[in-house]
């Protein structure tokens, strides 16, 4: 998600939205950096945050398809952001209560940033959804195309179940009603409808991705793969 947003640097539809989206990108990179640093510490041996980010192959990336969907147009960027933020905020509220102190600390820090993100994306969903005929049309198209990818957010993998049972991870069942309520309230005000289409069957959390991820990783990992262990 952070990488997708960074692609918009210098390409946003206006200076303000360009800066906003790259600011959000930076927050997400900062947050994931904290998780990667912690993961590297747990893994020990030669693991570093850079190796985790730059040397993992696509199958080792465990994320939903939603966050790697392309920046088709500004409507897609905003709708993808909104779906993600509506999920991310209640997720962090759960993780803040994690029994793992580091995860709880990262979540507590990230919540403050995520609130700003959700405010931003909700405001744009309303403005464009309830805007002109053209903007409404584009927003509804984006909602129709992206909503089927949101079901994966709530699919529990074995790891997630185990993490939740042990009080480390988040319980997706608690997040779901909060997420649904946010969608309902904001989309209604934006005069947008949730499409009645079946969920896309995706296995991003198990490492099976769309072809888009390959292109993202090619750009993201180019430097480390060309010049191994390069540092600033």
């Amino acid at each position, binding site marked *: 998600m952070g990488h997708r947003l960074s692609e918009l640097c210098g390409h946003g539809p206006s200076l*303000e*939205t360009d*800066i*906003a989206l790259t*600011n*959000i*990108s*930076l*927050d*997400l*990179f*900062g*947050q994931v*950096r*904290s998780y990667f640093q912690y993961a590297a510490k747990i893994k020990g041996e030669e693991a570093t945050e850079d190796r985790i980010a730059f040397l993992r192959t696509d199958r080792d990336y465990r994320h939903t398809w939603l966050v790697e969907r392309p920046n088709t147009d500004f409507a897609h960027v905003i709708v993808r952001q909104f779906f993600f933020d509506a999920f991310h905020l209640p997720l962090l509220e759960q993780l803040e209560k994690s029994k793992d*102190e*580091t995860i*709880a*600390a*990262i979540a*507590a*820090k*990230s919540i*403050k*940033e995520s609130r*700003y993100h959700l*405010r*931003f994306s909700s405001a744009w969903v309303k403005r464009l959804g309830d805007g002109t005929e053209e903007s409404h049309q584009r927003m509804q198209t984006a909602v129709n195309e992206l909503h089927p990818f949101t079901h994966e957010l709530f699919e529990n993998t074995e790891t997630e179940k185990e993490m939740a049972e042990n009080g480390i991870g988040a319980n997706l069942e608690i997040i779901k009603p909060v997420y649904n309520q946010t969608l309902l309230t904001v989309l209604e005000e934006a005069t947008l409808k949730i499409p009645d289409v079946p969920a896309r069957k995706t296995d991003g959390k198990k490492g099976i991705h769309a072809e888009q991820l390959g292109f993202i990783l090619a750009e993201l990992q180019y430097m480390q793969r060309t010049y191994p262990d390069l540092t600033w």
Partner: protein
Amino acid sequence: MVAADLQDLPSEVADALMKITDPEIPVLSVMDMGVVREVQLSGEKILVKLTPTYSGCPAMDTMAADIKMALDKLGYETRVELVLAPAWTTDWITAEGRAALEKYGIAAPLGSEADKLALIDGKRIVKCTNCGSTDTRMVSQFGSTACKALFQCRECLEPFDYFKCLK
């Protein structure tokens, strides 16, 4: 605790820390910003605990490097450690820091309630740093850095940054 207590430290250490600033806001020292949480001194070794303002703030690495360089120069063996909890809040910016921000042209953060009124409800309460008028409007919730929003004064037309409240 607003920031680490420098009283028990040698004055050269306290002075050095007071001189290190955020590279994006050169008038605000790391102490006035409240990001230095703890300083432990034992013999020649010194440990500085630093907390980030925003997770992705690129200035943190620079500040950590500046702290290390300044204290190493005084002959200490310096280690800077990043701590995440408790999470930083704009309440930790000192009164001196707030005054320095205003003077520099960045409106200091309001309380969290007032901040919401300004950023979400569009209430005109953020004071222009140029002419002092509160007849201002938000141009963008995200400004030149992660911690700021962009405003413009409707009275004197001057654009200025507002340091967003973070709690």
